[in-house]
């Protein structure tokens, strides 16, 4: 099992973005994603598109369901112009949890070694956080997640 904390990442007028931070890892997963792909010249535009898209949702539109591509129970921030995926959980128009991501190099994510582990993490988190919200242990209050924010997910 891996222990993680859901922590605030970026807050805008309409939507707050959280990230996940695994125990004993220096950076949160979204920063690890940025750190990994900012080294690659080929992905500079992709990272900028992700940031512009997050700011657009956060400042103007809100995290409306239609902007997210479902990937099983998680979603991907869609970089339609490249194979890069940033996985996330959209909990409401006001709350999104960003994870890590990778290059989706195949039709089925299971066949993409870079993207699949991060895809699994977000899908595993979906199960535990949904259950925690259902039980009232984690609360969605407007843009804010409160209550239980530490979870364990499968390796």
């Amino acid at each position, binding site marked *: 099992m891996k222990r993680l904390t859901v922590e605030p990442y*970026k807050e805008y007028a309409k939507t707050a973005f959280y990230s996940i931070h695994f125990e004993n890892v220096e950076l*949160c997963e979204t920063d690890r994603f*940025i750190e990994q792909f900012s080294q690659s010249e080929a992905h500079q535009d992709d990272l*900028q598109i992700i*940031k512009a*898209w997050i700011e*657009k949702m956060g400042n103007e539109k809100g995290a409306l369901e*239609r902007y997210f591509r479902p990937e099983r129970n998680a979603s991907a921030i869609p970089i339609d112009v490249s194979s890069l995926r940033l996985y996330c959980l959209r909990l409401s128009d006001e709350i999104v949890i960003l994870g890590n991501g990778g290059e989706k190099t195949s039709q089925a994510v299971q066949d993409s070694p870079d993207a699949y582990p991060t895809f699994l993490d977000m899908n595993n988190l979906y199960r535990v956080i949904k259950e925690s919200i259902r039980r009232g242990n984690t609360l969605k209050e407007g843009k804010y997640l409160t209550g239980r924010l530490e979870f364990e997910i499968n390796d």
Partner: protein
Amino acid sequence: MSKLFDSIEVRDEIKRFVDNSVDVVDQIYAILERQGKTQRDLAGLLDKSESEVSKWLTGTHNFTIKSISKIEAVLGEKIITTPMTSQQEFKLMLEKATRIWQSRNSLYHKVPVKVQHTKYLVITHVEHKQYGSMHVEKEKSLSLVA
């Protein structure tokens, strides 16, 4: 709050790309909603798979003029317009409202006008002043309510 995220500098062209893509997507959704159609209906009209159309409608698709034109054709409505076209339409709308207003020869009117499926209420108002025997039309104003 993330310093790494903040350190990404978004070029103006990238910001405009995302803005334009999201605007196009929102316009398509607005038309679908007004026409009582779904994403699946649109996929059928375009002879594409629903998953492909779904991919287009998430806000970072690089639409071509050709693909936008095709969507406009199957939906029978404009999706994009240029500032120049908007100004021309606005001018025509004001001219139409002014003609109606003048024909009614009245001080205050509310004239409904429809442009690109949006209804506007053109409110026209004239303030008259009487100086002895002279009647002066002092002020004209036109205002719009979407």
